[in-house]
């Protein structure tokens, strides 16, 4: 099947609507959350209309169907990320919960064996992380006395690996980093860093929130111990995320949340726990949302991830060309389409990002403005805030041209060009 963006767009009903008094929607905020294809929306409706029941505990036909749909989604997700064992796929609420699950479980392991963590131990992150891959580790360090350290970023928006040998050392217990920066688009050499970390005896967690939507979260090639991503950025519903972890680690790790369906046996004074993944899925899960994520995976697989990535690279090249010629515009991060994904953050001289996005919004162009939950990164780059345009399979050259024209209009409006 050849990739045709016109046909893809027909799958996304929202792209037909107008905004701000009749302007066609130009949605360039997919790194924030993606739009949903009809196939996913229909799956959610069908689940609630035809199969809704609780899973694993309902002893009737609907319960069987719901359980099958939920566990079927787990298998689809496992295949999507190249995991041979669907028991390594834990459903969570989002990436933040996936990362917190690891952080709290390690903290709960009470400092023994391979999860020991205390004074003198180190956790290494990077300066280009989303807050969700910073704050949980700050909190874990506060609880355990471990020290938080981090890779810096170079002025052109790549990880500064010059201190890697010093940063990753025998005291390092865990390295957590993003696969693809949500601000810069930079794709990091995760496999190399994971190899270094493993050689030092450390665990590795990868935040794949921005790479999974493009089919890049292959757990075999990432070489990590944990990989987290979220459904809503990859055509799926909100409220459903994924933590993949190596089975031998998941088996050893204590639970994060206690509650229904995560147990093996409960007495009044103690409990034993179900094997993974159920050990980490306490209470009634977002069942329909997991099933919807399964449908999103089916959709992306059917369109073809290679084709999606090729289309996004084409959009990225077009956007870099269209934006770099705008006087007073400075792109944060790599300006060449090499090892970078389809998110471009930039400054427009003399116009605050909030004002830039307001002008764009008035023309129907939806972008994000602010620090994009990456305040330390903006500080490191000496930028207070930025405007971000991000692309996905349904975007077109015309939409990028509308962005560029909108930016020129903003310059005229504020009298800066």
């Amino acid at each position, binding site marked *: 099947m050849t990739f045709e963006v016109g046909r893809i767009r027909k799958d996304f009903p929202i792209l037909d609507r107008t905004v701000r*008094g009749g302007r066609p929607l130009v949605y360039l905020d997919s790194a924030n959350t993606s739009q949903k294809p009809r196939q996913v929306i229909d799956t959610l409706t069908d689940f609630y209309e035809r199969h809704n029941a609780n899973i694993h505990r309902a002893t009737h036909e609907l319960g069987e169907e719901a359980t099958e749909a939920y566990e079927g989604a787990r298998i689809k997700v496992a295949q999507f990320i190249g995991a041979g064992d669907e028991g390594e796929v834990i459903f969570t609420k989002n990436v933040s919960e996936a990362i917190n699950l690891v952080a709290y479980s390690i903290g709960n392991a009470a400092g023994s064996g391979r999860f020991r963590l205390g004074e003198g131990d180190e956790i290494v992150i990077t300066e280009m992380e989303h807050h969700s891959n910073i704050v949980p580790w700050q909190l874990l360090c506060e609880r355990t006395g471990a020290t938080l350290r981090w890779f810096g970023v170079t002025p052109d928006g790549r990880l500064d690996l010059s201190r890697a040998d010093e940063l990753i050392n025998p005291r390092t217990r865990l390295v957590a980093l993003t696969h693809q920066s949500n601000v810069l688009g930079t794709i990091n050499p995760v496999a190399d860093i994971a190899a270094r970390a493993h050689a030092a005896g450390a665990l590795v967690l990868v935040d794949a929130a921005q790479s999974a939507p493009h089919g890049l979260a292959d757990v075999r090639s990432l070489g990590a111990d944990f990989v987290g991503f979220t459904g809503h950025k990859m055509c799926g519903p909100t409220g459903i995320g994924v933590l993949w972890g190596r089975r031998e680690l998941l088996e050893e790790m204590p639970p994060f949340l206690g509650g229904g369906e995560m147990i093996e046996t409960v007495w009044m004074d103690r409990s034993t726990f179900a094997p993974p993944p159920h050990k980490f899925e306490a209470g009634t899960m977002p069942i329909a949302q997991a099933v919807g994520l399964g449908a999103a995976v089916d959709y992306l697989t059917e369109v073809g991830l290679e084709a999606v990535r090729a289309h996004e690279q084409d959009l990225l090249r077009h956007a870099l060309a269209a934006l770099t010629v705008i006087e007073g515009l400075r792109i944060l991060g790599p300006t060449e389409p090499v090892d970078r994904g389809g998110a471009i953050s930039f400054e427009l001289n003399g116009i*605050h*990002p*909030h*004002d830039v996005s307001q002008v764009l919004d*008035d023309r129907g162009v939806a972008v994000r*403005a602010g620090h994009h939950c990456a305040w330390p990164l903006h500080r490191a780059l000496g930028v*207070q*805030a930025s405007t971000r345009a991000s692309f996905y399979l349904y975007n077109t050259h015309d939409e990028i041209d509308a962005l560029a024209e909108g930016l020129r209009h903003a310059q005229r*409006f504020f009298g800066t060009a």
Partner: protein
Amino acid sequence: MQLESMYQEIILEHYRRPLHAGLREPFDAEVRHVNPTCGDEVTLRVTLKDAGSEPTVADVSYDALGCSISQASTSIMADMIIGKTVAEAMAVGDEFLALMQSRGEGEPDEDVLGDAVAFEGVSKYPARIKCALLGWMAWKDATARALTGRQADEPTIGE
């Protein structure tokens, strides 16, 4: 085109040439407020004096990083409340807050709000209301601190 209704000329004017900007000595209280969604920030100082028995705004000085709306709002606020009694200035602040929460349905009283009526258009955009209120919130906080501080030294001042 709704853009002009939000970015009225007087707002752009204050954004380009903010009044009373820069931090000045002496001051009774200093606060730093941020807008966590965008990282905009303002450091604001308040100096009060006694006019009769009423605490009065002698000076408001500030150092702000932010969008046109937050910068202009802080500038207009400072220009409007310097010289007013704290009670009068608080009343303006309350009226401005009500306007911002009106979702475009408010009927601003120009006699009370002065140039700040220009922000009426902002109230239609929920994401920008915090921008318009950043300076006001900082001023209210700083003033409350200044009054408390003065109460300790001069128990007759304040309420």
